[in-house]
């Protein structure tokens, strides 16, 4: 169907050529699509089908599928502990992110535009420090002077705020840039509103989508982050996967797949909230 639209757009003279040239691009989409699909299907089969690979064939490929590995795994007390820790980290890191970014950025927009380029630059610095290098630095910096700090589970919060910063900063920055902040603030001031009141009842309602996106981004980072948690020995969900893999690989694969589905759903929600503003989330450097 798309071949015809393309040919029509190209005009009748180029019609045949366009259709011929279209074949390679269909082939690309097919191959890439299979590459995306097959590992997920393999994982789903391993996680949810109770048939060993060496007896699997065309006759039994649809039998003995079960959700039991996932249900058993999530009933383990270790899973509950890990899920609670990850949730706590996600909520705290999201709150810290918002408290840190929103007032700073509003202030930079309204009062101190000179600070904006500096803040922009700072916000992308986490890109140049890979998680594994960061954790080396954390150990070297905090272990000698504040061992109690990295011993605490919640010490991950500030690092997750920093790791998510390039994405969260852009999300809130974009939503503020779309507003005529000065006019809003002047209008509020002339009506006698105090600064906190303006921020709370004028600016924040206007950047709700950006704030929501930033919080979802933090949750995505917390759900996926393995490096720092692993090397600081914190039992978060990704670490639970590793623990489970030792004793119950099928359960670990099931939980892993579920984690990917949750991450995909979060990212889908993020794309939905940011799509209207035409923001492409180019992410990935984690």
């Amino acid at each position, binding site marked *: 169907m798309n071949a015809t639209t393309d040919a029509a757009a190209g005009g009748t003279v180029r019609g045949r050529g366009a259709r011929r040239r279209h074949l390679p691009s269909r082939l*690309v*989409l097919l191959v890439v699509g299979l590459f995306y699909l097959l*590992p997920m299907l393999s994982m789903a089969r391993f996680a949810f089908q109770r048939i060993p690979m060496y007896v699997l064939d065309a006759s039994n490929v649809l039998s003995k599928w079960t959700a039991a590995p996932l249900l058993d795994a999530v009933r383990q007390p270790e899973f509950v502990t890990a899920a609670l820790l990850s949730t706590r980290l996600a909520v705290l890191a999201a709150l810290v992110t918002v408290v840190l970014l929103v007032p700073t950025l509003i202030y930079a927009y309204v009062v101190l535009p000179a600070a904006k380029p500096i803040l922009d630059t700072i916000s992308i*610095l986490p890109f140049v420090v890979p*998680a594994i290098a960061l954790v080396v*630095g954390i150990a070297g910096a905090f272990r000698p002077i504040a061992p109690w700090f990295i011993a605490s589970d919640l010490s991950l919060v500030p690092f997750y705020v920093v790791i998510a910063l390039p994405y969260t900063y852009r999300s809130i920055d974009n939503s503020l840039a779309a507003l005529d902040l000065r006019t809003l603030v002047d209008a509020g001031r002339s009506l006698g509103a105090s600064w906190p009141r303006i921020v709370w009842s004028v600016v924040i309602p206007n950047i709700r989508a950006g704030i929501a996106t930033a919080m979802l981004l933090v949750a995505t980072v917390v759900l996926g982050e393995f490096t720092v948690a692993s090397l600081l020995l914190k039992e978060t969900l990704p670490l639970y996967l590793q623990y489970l893999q030792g004793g119950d690989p099928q359960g670990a*694969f099931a939980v892993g*797949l579920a984690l990917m589905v949750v991450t995909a759903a979060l990212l889908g929600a993020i794309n939905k909230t940011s799509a209207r503003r035409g923001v492409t989330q180019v992410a990935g450097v*984690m």
Partner: protein
Amino acid sequence: MVVAPSALKGDPPVGRVPLRTLRRWLPVAPFIGFVGLFLLWPAVVVFRRASERLDAVRAPMIEAITGQFGANFAFSIRLSALTAAIGVVVGTATAVAVARLGNASTTRNLIIGWSAVAANLGGLPLAFAFVAALGKQGLITRLLAEMGIDIVGAGFEIAGFWGIVLAYLYFQFPLMTLVMTPAIEGLRAAWREAAASLGADPRTYWRLVGLPILTPPMVSGFLLLFANAFSAYATAYALSSGGSRLIPVQIRFFLQGNTITGKTNLGYALAGWMIIVMVVTMGGFLLLRRRTERWRA
């Protein structure tokens, strides 16, 4: 001596200006301080410790790029560059194919939406997926064997170089597709028509118009993908059960308190070199990207 009093008299106005500036900057200080404490300070510590020689024969920063560790760095860079190069080609081809489908196409939106998800997948779950697909008991391994292609017998190992390359491509392809789609969809139909009306066939159009416009985003995409692969850790760690030669996996060994006699602080030096490589590639990426964006506007 005689000058001093007048200098003192001139002090207050000079001193007041910085004070006011300081007060104006005070509200942004928590943010800067936060990043300083939890990102910059650890990074500075990495370099400070990497420059302490202690009992080492050679400075750690030198030790980290010679001998066995130099070879491991070369291994990491080769793997990252290869996944970036394949990612650029396939990701761009996907973006071109997607752009042909037109804005309203369901397939297009499906692929773009999935790319935004897959570019962020990684870690242990991704490693699990590739073990399930291409491990010794993997589904694809088995399917290929049924077709008479014995990848295990041919020496393929999911924990080896090519196994890690394939797993990394799973997030490299979609990232490149995301980078290239706006650039390709920004190629205006008017340019193609103008070229055609001047007598250019499609091949000439791509050679003289399309490719020159797409080269900067492709180069910056390569740098981004390289940095992406170079800094990845969890997938490779899980695929290789911690045994990979990749630098991030090697660093773990030192971080767990292991030291090789005479090579103290080597872990810091490896981390330091990683940061240097990232600064160079991400710096290049951002510079190029800024230029492309200005040009497009």
